[in-house]
């Protein structure tokens, strides 16, 4: 092969992959810009205030270009925050316990049984979680607490906790595994039992990684749409009890966008919700980066 062709290929190949890299950056920018533009229409075109959107209790946007409705999305925002927080409260202890088990208690069982099981958990589609939640969990909750309907914040949180369990477990396990064994030896050498080593040295040493895992789990719970939509009850009321049906941002977008007129106030308000979700997920990334950077500085 002549040198000429060789280097022409190099040039083409390099150009091609560079284009692809650029395309990804442009795609990300495009998504951000679309969301910013459409999401800000609620405030720019329809003249609502940011505080009305974030804290307003009345959700009655008009489904037309004239506008004039109310876009208080507080009930959706609260629903999203409460369901994901409760999901975290349920999932984190179990996840961290499993992560400890597969790394320090029985790596053998961990490798052969638990890790594959966690991977399968992660692969189950979210609508299937939602469906099982709807046909199994919701009737249980209804019966257990004698409720008119079982769809509730509790149901949504439990479904979400099972969904984020594999994420938090596997990332925490990686973090625990990367703790330098010299710390553990030091503690054993002072006469600590395995459990004492785990809670007083191992977990503090892995806390950044575990925190990263928790934020990723939170991010996944916050952005999950259909599984939550199936079991939360989609009640447009401010959540007052764990057992009450409620609503959340993702479910509202999923169920109302189809019927909303393009360019109308409802449509714009739903886009603002999407923008809010986008900003939240961006903040989660920033948080993870900050934790990582602090970890580097300390190491």
């Amino acid at each position, binding site marked *: 092969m002549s040198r000429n062709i*060789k*280097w022409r*290929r*190099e040039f083409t190949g*390099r150009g091609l*992959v*560079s284009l692809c*890299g650029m*395309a*990804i*950056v442009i*795609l*990300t920018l*495009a*998504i951000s810009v*679309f969301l910013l533009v*459409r999401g800000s229409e609620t405030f720019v075109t329809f003249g609502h205030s940011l505080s009305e959107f974030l804290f307003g209790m009345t959700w009655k946007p008009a489904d037309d270009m004239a506008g004039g409705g109310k876009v208080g999305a507080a009930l959706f925002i609260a629903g999203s925050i409460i369901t994901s927080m409760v999901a975290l409260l349920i999932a984190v202890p179990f996840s961290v*316990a*499993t992560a400890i*088990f*597969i790394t320090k*208690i*029985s790596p053998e069982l*961990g490798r052969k*049984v638990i890790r594959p*099981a*966690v*991977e*399968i*958990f992660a*692969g*189950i*589609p979210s*609508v*299937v979680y*939602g*469906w099982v939640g709807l*046909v199994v969990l919701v009737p249980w909750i209804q019966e257990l607490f004698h409720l008119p309907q079982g769809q509730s914040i509790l149901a949504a949180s439990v479904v979400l906790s*099972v969904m984020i369990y594999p994420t938090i477990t596997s990332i925490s396990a990686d973090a625990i595994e990367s703790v330098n064994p010299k710390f553990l030896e030091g503690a054993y050498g002072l006469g600590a*039992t*395995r*459990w*004492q080593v785990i*809670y007083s040295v191992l977990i503090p040493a892995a806390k950044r990684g575990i925190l990263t895992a928790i934020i990723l789990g939170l991010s996944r719970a916050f*952005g999950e*749409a*259909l599984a939550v*939509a*199936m079991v939360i009850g989609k009640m447009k009321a401010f959540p007052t009890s764990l057992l009450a049906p409620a609503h959340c941002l*993702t479910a509202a*977008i999923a169920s109302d966008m*189809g019927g909303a007129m*393009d360019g109308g106030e409802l449509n714009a308000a739903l*886009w603002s919700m*999407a923008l809010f*979700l*986008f900003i939240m*997920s*961006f903040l989660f*990334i920033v948080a993870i980066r900050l934790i990582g950077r602090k970890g580097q500085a300390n190491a």
Partner: protein
Amino acid sequence: MTTTSTGAVASEQNKNPLTQVDASIRHARFSDRLATGALYAISGSFVLLLIAMLSYIMYNGIEAYSGTIFSFTDEGIGNQFFNTIYLVVISLLVSVPLGIATGVYMSEYAAPGRTTDLLQMALETLSSLPSVVVGLFGYLAFVVYVGTQWNLFSGALAVSILSIPLITTTTYNALQALPKGYREGSLALAATPWETIVHVLLPACVQPIITGIMLAAGRGFGEAAALLYTAGMSTDINWNVWNLASPVCPLNPFRPGETLSLAVWASRTEGTTANAGDVAAAASAVLICLVLFFSIMSRWLGRAISRKIEGE
């Protein structure tokens, strides 16, 4: 009685302190055993939960079986099954080349520092996007602005946005993990960087890349929120029409195409047809089978391919 108790005290005192276990050790041993038991119980219960869920789903799927449930008609989920596979294949056709190329660019060509940081940030942003937001973007960009209706191709593009970060990251990590000698050895033989990438580096990364692609495919099968307003929730296929331009031709990517996961969602939330419950049960079971099949395949295929390449 007094003599025995004083005798016991005396013998306690005679014992070597090294053979004694004090209260703090007894307490520590007890908590250790308790915690170990709890960790076993928690990890075990999740395995049981998984088994219970999988068997529940499979059992209901089999119970929902009727002559028509797997048929390629309105009562069956055959068309949805086909749409699911077709959509994932199209999305992989887009995301695999783009994802691998970006991974290669990031690892081999991009200047470390600002360029890779920018790309990294972009990828992290993409991968953390809620899928319903990706669906909205897809709806606007691929459906509204193009001026068309809901269609499979838009759905495939939306799914691609979700799988590109995964494929790129696995490619990048695999390339970064290669020993430096691979590059130096090839470059020393007067190969260009591009030849090194194509003939040496990428073949050495086949296994992790395949695993990444399979993982992306598995997610694609299960994706629903991103497809709500892109691929649409209806399907109208005529298996006798093979004119690609026809809106009822199965292979026409520019027709609406409901996937299995959307069928689960639709039948439980809208419940328009009489056998909605059965459709959801059967579709869930088929989805689970697809996902399991792909996760097993990815391990097997990855191992087989890397064995073949290393063997040659």
